[in-house]
């Protein structure tokens, strides 16, 4: 079996004196989609933010491609091949759709290939092509989510971190967003997906971790988790 792309060991995150994440351990293998599910406040987004160096961990190690990355500067991460699609999308509202996508490729210098990738993103997300000259702030929530994902893909990541892609979207848009996630995953992308919508997340993932108040309490193949009575009761509303 191949070496995992990402290995997180004993990761702890604290806000003031309060432990939000209490020493969790998990890994992501190359090419797989892994879901991190759990209730609001379980520490999922904090975990992702720590991985993307948006906040400092209180302890533990994060190894990516065998290298410790918990001391990198936030702006160095994307060069390593890690892209985060942040919670709440975080598109640049006053930049156009195309400019947002170009920002995704900020660290790349292969002009011709950037142009090719732009076309590829537009093919994957045709709505963005229609609106390429519009300011991102004028897009709908779903379109902004697509844009945020397209922007992350423009950096040609090896590991894509998706934070609550369904948040605040209409059901039809949620469906579309997850179709895109699946499409990207099927092209071989490694994805770590944080999501409150456990059913959707597990449906597109190979494995899942269940987080409860700062701890990982359960892990298994996604299909098994979907059938797990505890998961069903707590997260699937059955």
């Amino acid at each position: 079996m191949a070496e995992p792309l990402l290995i997180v060991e004993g990761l702890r995150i604290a806000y003031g004196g309060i432990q939000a994440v209490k020493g969790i351990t998990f890994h992501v293998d190359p090419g797989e989609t892994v879901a991190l599910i759990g209730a609001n406040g379980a520490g999922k987004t904090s975990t992702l933010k720590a991985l993307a160096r948006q906040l400092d961990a209180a302890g533990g190690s994060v190894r990516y491609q065998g290298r410790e990355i918990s001391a990198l500067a936030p702006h160095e991460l994307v060069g390593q091949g890690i892209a985060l699609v942040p919670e709440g999308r975080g598109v640049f509202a006053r930049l156009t759709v195309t400019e947002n996508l170009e920002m995704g490729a900020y660290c790349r210098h292969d002009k011709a290939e950037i142009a090719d990738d732009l076309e590829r993103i537009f093919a994957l997300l045709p709505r963005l092509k229609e609106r390429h000259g519009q300011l991102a702030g004028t897009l709908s929530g779903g379109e902004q989510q697509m844009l945020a994902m397209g922007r992350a893909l423009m950096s040609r990541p090896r590991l894509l971190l998706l934070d609550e892609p369904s948040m605040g979207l209409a059901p039809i848009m949620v469906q579309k967003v997850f179709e895109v996630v699946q499409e990207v995953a099927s092209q071989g992308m490694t994805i770590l997906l944080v999501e409150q919508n456990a059913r959707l997340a597990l449906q597109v993932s190979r494995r899942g971790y269940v987080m409860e108040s700062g701890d990982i309490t359960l892990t298994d193949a996604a299909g098994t988790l979907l059938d797990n009575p505890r998961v069903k009761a707590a997260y699937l509303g059955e």
Partner: protein
Amino acid sequence: MDIFLQQIINGLVLGSIYALVALGYTMVYGILGLINFAHGEVVMIGALTALTVVKLLAGSGLPGPVIALIGLMAAAPVCMAIGYGIEKIAYRPLRKAPRLAPLITAIGVSIVLQNLAMMVWGRSYHSFPAVLPAEAHEVLGATFTDLQVIIVLVAAGMMAGLLLLINRTRLGRAMRATAENPAIAQLMGVNVNHIISLTFVIGSALAAVAGLMVSANYSIAHYYMGFILGLKAFTAAVLGGIGNLAGAMIGGILLGLIESLGAGYIGDITGGFLGSHYQDVFAFFVLILVLVFRPSGLVGEKVAERA
């Protein structure tokens, strides 16, 4: 009619200078939400540095414009270094401090720079040698000099260049992205500290140009000149809408025109009771009006309060 046209010409020249300085205020505000009150002092140091070099070369037999250009070549790096240093030493440690702290620091930096300049250049007024063509041309009863034409054209060129940089280049895109959301810009791989430093450096380069212009135009410079000039340029930035580049340019030109026309006609309006030395009143009257009636400025979007 001739007074009117004359004041329009004077106002355009003055306004071009205000606009260049106002850009420095507005760029920094756009990215940090901070009013860099020391910016006027950077203009002053630019003016005195350029003047000193021009004075040294005045008798060298070099053509005037070349001497002025060498003066600028000396002033620009000095100003850029000071702008870079101000941000790094005074503002960066306060990046996460409450808003009042950097504001007070800005005033402190301003006092420090003024006093440093006083130590280097003394308290006296320095006259700018007449190396630039001051030949007057007459049009419809109003006069203008080559120098005035150069000032307006150079300022227009610098502003066009800046707009191109901000709107059409990868770097400008990163600057706009950082201004909007530094945390997300960082995710894209933008080194936000570099972008902020660069913003100060570019603003300071414009300040150097403005410093040379203002000292050449009035043939004078002294260590205290940055204070009032800075306040007026700040007024211009607020008039246009602080944080907005086009606003700073429009605000600068408008303020120059208002001041010139005001100074030209204040005697007539008040029956000679007030003279043109009340020129400075207009800028601050404009500032008060804008702050009361349209705090977001002429072309500014709503100024979002940053946490």
